[in-house]
């Protein structure tokens, strides 16, 4: 397990360096950002699109960050269809959490927390489950607490809604110390504007 973790970390580091050195990470300007064909959200600041250095995410998930993915990251799932997940399945023996159209609201929360666990976070807990709006659709909002493998406390918040049988997710994760609160206002605005 440790060897795999070390190898994965090395690959991610290498990819990060390639990304920084090669200038391949795109910036995302303030303003509207599409969430699939029919939906969008509004960004209040400039973000970096760090999706290329997170190969584990599925194609329909875009990952934004301000200070780098280890310090803050926002997963934006742009209309997952039934059977699709936030993450790509690596092989047959390791399925990842996937969305189903008939999921109960508690199962949607479970889908999100299981996805966060599958990203490598541990001791994932939810709190403050509350209603949210996503355009005309009812949605869910809740907060998360988790730890990295090495014990770093992480906080998060998520908003999810099913519209047109597709799942839309905005999931924010950052270290509890400083970084979570620092970027939270921008994420709140992102979630509020999603429709």
């Amino acid at each position, binding site marked *: 397990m*440790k060897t795999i973790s070390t190898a994965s970390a090395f690959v991610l580091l290498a990819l990060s360096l390639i990304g920084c050195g090669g200038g391949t990470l795109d910036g995302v300007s303030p303003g509207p950002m599409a969430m699939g064909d029919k939906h969008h959200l509004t960004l209040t600041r400039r973000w970096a699109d760090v999706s290329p250095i997170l190969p584990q995410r599925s194609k329909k998930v875009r990952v934004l960050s301000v200070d780098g993915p280890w310090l803050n990251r926002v997963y934006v799932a742009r209309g997952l269809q039934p059977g699709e997940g936030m993450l790509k399945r690596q092989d047959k023996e390791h399925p990842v959490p996937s969305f*189903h159209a008939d999921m109960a609201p*508690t199962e949607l929360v479970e889908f999100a927390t299981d996805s966060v*666990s599958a990203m490598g976070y541990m001791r994932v807990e939810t709190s*403050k489950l509350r*209603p949210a709006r996503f355009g005309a659709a009812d949605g869910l909002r*809740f907060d998360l607490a988790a730890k*990295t493998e090495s014990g770093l406390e992480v906080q998060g918040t998520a908003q999810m809604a099913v519209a047109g049988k597709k799942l839309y997710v905005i999931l924010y994760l950052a270290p509890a110390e400083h970084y979570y609160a620092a970027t939270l206002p921008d994420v709140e605005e992102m979630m509020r504007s999603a429709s």
Partner: protein
Amino acid sequence: MIGWPYRAPRLFGAFVLTAVLASAGPPAWAAAPADLELRPPNLKPAPKSVEAGMWDDSDRAEAHTRIAAELDTDPALQAYVRGVFCKIAADYCGEARVYVLDRPFLNATCFPNGYVEVWSGLLLRAQTEGQLAYVVGHEVSHFARNHSLSKWNHDKTTRDVATVLTVGVQAGAMFGMVKVAQSGAPNSRQMIDDISDMAQNLNDLIYLGAMAHIMAYSREHENEADRLGFQRAVAAGYEKSTGPDMWTGTIAESRASDFAAVRKADVRASIYRTHPLDQDRIDALKAQGGVVAAPDIDARKRYRAAIRGHLGSWLKDDLRRRDDGQTLFLIDRLSEVGEDFGVLQFYRGEAYRQRRHDGDAPLALAAYKTAVGYPDAPVAAWRELGEALRRAGDKPAAAEAFETYLAKAPDAEDRWLVEASLKTVKGA
């Protein structure tokens, strides 16, 4: 670390190597001498030695574990597992630091510096304290025999020899190619290509042979640790069925997997396996006096009492592996003890709900219905029962289940959601 460039093995090399190694045969069980030398307690490595380097690595791993999110901080559980360690390894008890990690896989490790990891997946799968003791005894035996150091030395020597042989082959090939080129023979181009191909085949053969040699040595260590671990467990008063039963259980669990590759993984013998086949381990333990027998029910109950507080969270972790066939197998086996039905039936329902195969929904509903009949059922069982009943179209029963959930969990964070579901099934 010394290595050599890997190329995909040519068919020729693989064929020849397989033939050579198959004719040689794998080392038999219990190849180690009878009077095995064990490391003395409280051993300290010589400064700047290879072993000292290993201790440094182990110290770092231990420091990482002390703050790791997976560290189980239940002092009672830590004390229990440490107690088992000390029962089968009293000689090393004083220097051992035992940590339980919440990882849903069957594993334990005893590092050269005395740092010991026991994973929750092992604790969930062991049926008795004896089975746990056998696996820990296996790891202690690696430690007592300094296997990590001898493996490091063995692997290094193997790699060094392989490197020398590879360089020799390359040099010989170069020499041959130069000679052919100087000869001016009409087919010299073809001959040079043939020499190059032959050298590549030989180097593939050397690489594969070296890997097979390294893996065979690893299997020898595993066999020896199996035998010594079994002896430790029996000497400490545990049943002679502990070892064979442990591996019988892992075979049965593998066969219950949702995935064909997992089901077949332990029936494919290979010269590149790091561990022996489980069936071979059972046969070897039987040769040492081990017996295959259903674990004693009282022993299972005593062990269950030690892990009961963690049963639910470990099953939840196991569900995240998303091999529901294996999780359901584990739940079946845990149910044989005749206790904890509320928890076990709830997680049986969760496994069926998560799996979503045809026919799973009624099975989940039945499991939730059974779970709520026991006082140890998690309160979430009522919510899931309500949801399963709603899906089955039984609205009155669903309403009753949701109301019970709300009564039992008045402060639940999802109260508003369940209230909404309740309104829906009541037709409001």
